[in-house]
């Protein structure tokens, strides 16, 4: 319960934070702290310096342009859940934000913190990966924007940590008309962490029964390498008419994916493999239902 010793630095800007990370090799970024401080209390990690970016206004807020939605790295789940612009443009992100963990954690936990951690059971990485999101990184060498496929590098590791950069914001391309998404998870308890998670995004042309899948993004959480892309499933879906049997196609294609599952006290690897298929199938069903009911994203 008592953290190991570390020092604390409160930068006045993201640039200062980047400098601090560069200056002190053992430094780690403190965002909302809703995982990091627990890891410290459990004596799992021992950074020499915490660089606290949680108070930086420049890392907050949601800004919408024609092309994309920019989300401040330190925007809290509660802020995102309540953000009308986010609800209007990327409703799935707002909805997920509103059911994350609990009331207190939503007031403090940040979207970039969730992503930078990249715990396989984290909510946002598969969702953002399915949305083709990119991450604005600021290091001493300058700022750059990294696509989610290049940002999430494995369990508890991201490009931000490797390059000793601060994430300043997340860019989500505005979903096109005809984008539909669904997320399915099996949770340890209600609003608790997941033991299986699948996110499915289908971009369709046409509507209702005439809809055809023109793009697909299928991502798994709770798996090695999460958020894990399932290209075979995506390939099985693209070009198909939107019909009720789409989910069976997807489920069959999951078997061809090279996914490695982890086991823990809440479920074995084999069980999680089974659940992944079920969750993909159900998420596809959700999307198909959504399309066939004519509801647009």
């Amino acid at each position, binding site marked *: 319960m008592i953290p190991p010793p570390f020092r604390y630095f409160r930068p006045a800007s993201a640039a200062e934070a980047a*400098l601090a990370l560069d200056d002190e090799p053992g430094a780690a970024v403190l965002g909302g702290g809703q995982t990091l401080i627990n890891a410290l209390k459990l004596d799992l990690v021992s950074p020499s310096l915490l660089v606290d970016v949680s108070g930086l206004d420049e890392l907050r807020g949601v800004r919408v342009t024609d092309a994309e939605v920019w989300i401040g790295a330190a925007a809290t789940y509660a802020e995102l859940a309540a953000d009308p612009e986010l609800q209007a443009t990327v409703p799935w992100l707002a909805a997920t934000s509103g059911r994350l963990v609990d009331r207190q954690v939503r007031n403090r936990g940040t979207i970039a913190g969730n992503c930078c951690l990249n715990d396989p059971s984290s909510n946002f990485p598969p969702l953002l990966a399915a949305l083709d999101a990119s991450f604005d990184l600021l290091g001493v060498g300058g700022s750059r924007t990294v696509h989610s496929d290049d940002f999430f590098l494995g369990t508890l590791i991201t490009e931000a940590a490797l390059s000793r950069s601060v994430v300043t914001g997340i860019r989500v391309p505005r979903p096109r008309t005809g984008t539909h998404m669904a997320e399915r998870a099996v949770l340890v308890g209600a609003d608790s962490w997941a033991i299986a998670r699948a996110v499915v995004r289908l971009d369709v042309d046409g509507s209702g029964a005439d809809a055809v899948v023109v793009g697909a993004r299928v991502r798994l959480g709770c798996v090695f390498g999460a958020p894990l892309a399932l290209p075979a499933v995506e390939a099985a879906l693209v070009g198909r008419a939107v019909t009720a049997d789409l989910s069976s196609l997807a489920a069959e294609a999951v078997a061809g994916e090279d996914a490695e599952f982890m086991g823990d006290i809440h479920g074995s690897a084999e069980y999680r493999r089974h659940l992944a298929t079920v969750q993909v199938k159900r998420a596809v069903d959700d999307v198909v239902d959504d399309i066939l009911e004519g509801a647009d994203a």
Partner: protein
Amino acid sequence: MTDTVSPDMANRDTGDGTASQGTAGNDVRARVRAAMTGPDVVAVTARVDGRQIEGQVPARRLLVHWLRDSGRRGPKVGCDSGNCGACTVQLDGRIVKSCMVLAVQADGADIRTAADLTEEDGGLNPLQQSFKDFHALQCGYCTSGMLMTAADFLASGEPVEEQPVRRALKGNICRCTGYENIVRAVMAAGGAAVVQPHGRGARIDADGTVADTRSDVDTEGSH
């Protein structure tokens, strides 16, 4: 996808896209060095339950411990992992788990703990009274955190119905009550109709005076 440098980001951050240049950079590095090599003591000043409190703490001191060391018994520690919510306090108007906040992060903040919930005359506020009326506490260890969360929920304007209440309380673990009476107490405090405690009879106030309401004892319920 190729990594791209974003002029937008660069402009917002440093004006020149690089953070390490110039005297400003040296100043930051000097401050980092100072943080690393100076004594591990940071000053914290916060308003706690309406009073200014000042302290000197090591960087790693958790807010919950700082508040407790400052004499506040409301926030409690029940887990190591941010699950139990016994340490819930209000930090600048928002409830947080004070075991997942560093004391130094609360510098300059306005904090309210459960000790601040009572009426000005020291009596129970309506939510506290409802907890008492509905037997929503047993050992009392989770109670301060529960009250902070319940108060936040009731102030939010969300519908006072069973499922929203249960969801709101999700971040607070109670190992005694099974939550049923807590849910009822919160709903009752929010004006919803709920089942009365089994055999509800009299009421005793803390000072020992008794409001005898035994006329409305629910004799149906007990057999």
